[in-house]
């Protein structure tokens, strides 16, 4: 077991990673509750936004323009997908809706690999100006990006919680999570509420893509499939509670990074989200046993 001081830097990076997972997880849960779609393209749209931001930066656009572009691209792709395929698939099984987003993932992934090719070993990086500044707690260096990542996780979780509880749109989303048909009958503009959920989730995907491109790597494959780690947190929360999602995401991020200095486990640290999710599913109550009848697989 390495000394405690070896772990200290990884607490900070773990919390930062956990913060991004948390805001991603909250986006996924809110969209799932409002529309019944588990958005597996979350990572891919974020990656698309980040790569476009990188290209804009290379073309000489100022930093804030590229960041906004990243978020806007992710939000618009997500909204577009929701507007096109949301209504067409609205009556289908959640499984079908989730698999359909795999279609979007593949399209975006193919496009990214085509436009920002990595063959020939091209390496890109996206650095935010907040990487340079920072402060230290004892021996640990903390940069502002890490602070922003964790803060964004907290703010988004609390903000979304308040939004769902206190605003009219949030109430409508919660109503739709309960029963779409009845909500529509009560005069809630279902399509508009869904569009808001898609847009919000897409914007969060953009923010997550931007932060992860800086914290982890700007690489289409990595960013696209980092969503799997977020999915673990969402699974632990059973696609329901945003509070549990937040806690699970922080635990996933923290545990993942804290395993790094332990030599016997460091190669296996990427398994953290999977192992945590599997354990969580094992202890899941049997209430959810009965599957709904479905039209098609």
């Amino acid at each position, binding site marked *: 077991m390495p000394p405690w001081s070896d772990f200290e830097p990884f607490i900070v990076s773990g919390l930062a990673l956990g913060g991004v997972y948390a805001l991603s997880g909250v986006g996924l849960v809110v969209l799932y509750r409002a529309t019944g779609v*588990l958005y597996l393209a979350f990572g891919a749209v974020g990656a698309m936004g980040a790569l476009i931001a990188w290209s804009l930066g290379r073309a000489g656009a100022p930093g804030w323009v590229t960041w906004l572009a990243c978020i806007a691209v992710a939000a618009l792709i997500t909204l577009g997908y929701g507007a096109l*395929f949301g209504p*067409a*698939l609205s009556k*289908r*099984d*959640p*499984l*079908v809706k*989730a*698999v*359909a987003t*795999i*279609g*979007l*993932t*593949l*399209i*975006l*992934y*193919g*496009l990214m*690999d*085509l436009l920002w090719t990595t063959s020939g070993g091209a390496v890109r990086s996206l650095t935010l100006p907040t990487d340079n500044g920072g402060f230290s707690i004892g021996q640990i260096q903390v940069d502002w990006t890490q602070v922003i990542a964790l803060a964004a996780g907290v703010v988004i979780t609390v903000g979304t919680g308040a939004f769902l509880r206190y605003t009219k749109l949030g109430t409508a989303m919660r109503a739709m999570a309960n029963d779409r048909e009845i909500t529509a009958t009560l005069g809630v503009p279902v399509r508009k509420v869904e569009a808001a959920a898609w847009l919000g989730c897409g914007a969060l995907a953009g923010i997550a893509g931007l932060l992860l491109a800086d914290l982890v790597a700007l690489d289409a*494959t990595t960013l*696209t*499939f980092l969503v*799997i780690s977020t*999915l*673990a947190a969402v*699974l632990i929360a059973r696609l329901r509670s945003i509070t549990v999602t937040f806690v699970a995401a922080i635990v996933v991020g923290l545990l993942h990074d804290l395993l790094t200095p332990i030599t016997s486990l460091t*190669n*296996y640290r*990427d*398994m953290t*989200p*999977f*192992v945590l*999710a*599997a354990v969580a*599913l*094992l202890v*899941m109550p*049997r209430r*959810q*046993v*009965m*599957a*709904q*009848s*479905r039209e*098609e*697989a």
Partner: protein
Amino acid sequence: MRDTLIRATPRRVRQETSRPQLIRAAVVTVLLLFTLFALPQILSLYYIDTMTQVAVYSMVTLALGVLAGRVGLVSLGQVAVLAIGAWVAARLLFETTQPYPLILVEAGLITMAAGVLIGLPALRLRGLYLALITLMFAGAITVVLATVNFPNGGHGFTGYNGSLVHIPPVRRPSIASSDPAYFRYSVIVAILMFLLVLAHIKTRPGRAWAAIRQSEPAALAAGINTWLYKLWAFALASFITGVAGGVLAGAVHYLYSIDFPTQDSITLLAVTLMGGVYSMWGAVVAALLYQFLPALLNNWGVSADWLIILFGLGVLQVLTTAPAGLADQVPKDLARLGRLLRGRLRRPAPGSTE
């Protein structure tokens, strides 16, 4: 009630053995003979290797198709299962001198045991959770494989020796050491797996799966042990994929963990859906999409990324308009085209899809 439901079906099916079925059997026989004897003669070595891969992956897509089309379960981790099969087979092939078919069966059974262990808890959950847990599982296997590596003739449990200079190839059966012979061997193994699935579909498990797919509560009410039959399907799919892994090990000779990335599981599901999950032809179409098309495009110098985009569009199209996939749609479209060509335009042509 339950007995009438279950026993009434086969009698009716048997009575319907008629001309179309005979024609279909004849077509299948001719196609198989062509594949086994003519194809290795006319293809270059490049395409023979490609077609061996098609045979291997047709088993994997068959397994995925059984899960998705017959039972309504979706696995997002089938490449990991394939990797387990390949790993076990390679380990056994290096360690023992057992005949190849025996090793294929063993690889299938061990993979099946692993699949059942994963499926056991997940099958009690709803479909979406099963899909996600298989995705998690695929991710975890990828991580483990990257560290453990595939056996390369070393010793110990992992059979991996990082300091080996001359890595021995995974052996092939003595009767099929050349590439064309191994292609035939792979096709025959694939045929046996298709027959295994056919035997399931035509009998009790197939009817239970059909009931579960329609409505799980109704199947439960009809006295079907839904959990058992879902697990059965999962075990069968794992077995077939494990056998495919064993065939793959001999086909490529050298196995690397980098060849089994998590994203391939997702692409595989996409092509399986595109090929069509309600017919066994779909599995063949899917394997051609997955292995033959990239080889063809590679030969033409076109980026494989276009295919990924195509697969993505294909999934969306299948899920929104044509749930039975290409295996169902292409014959319909061809028939429609044929009618148009024959000038039978007196009546408006019926819709090509649904």
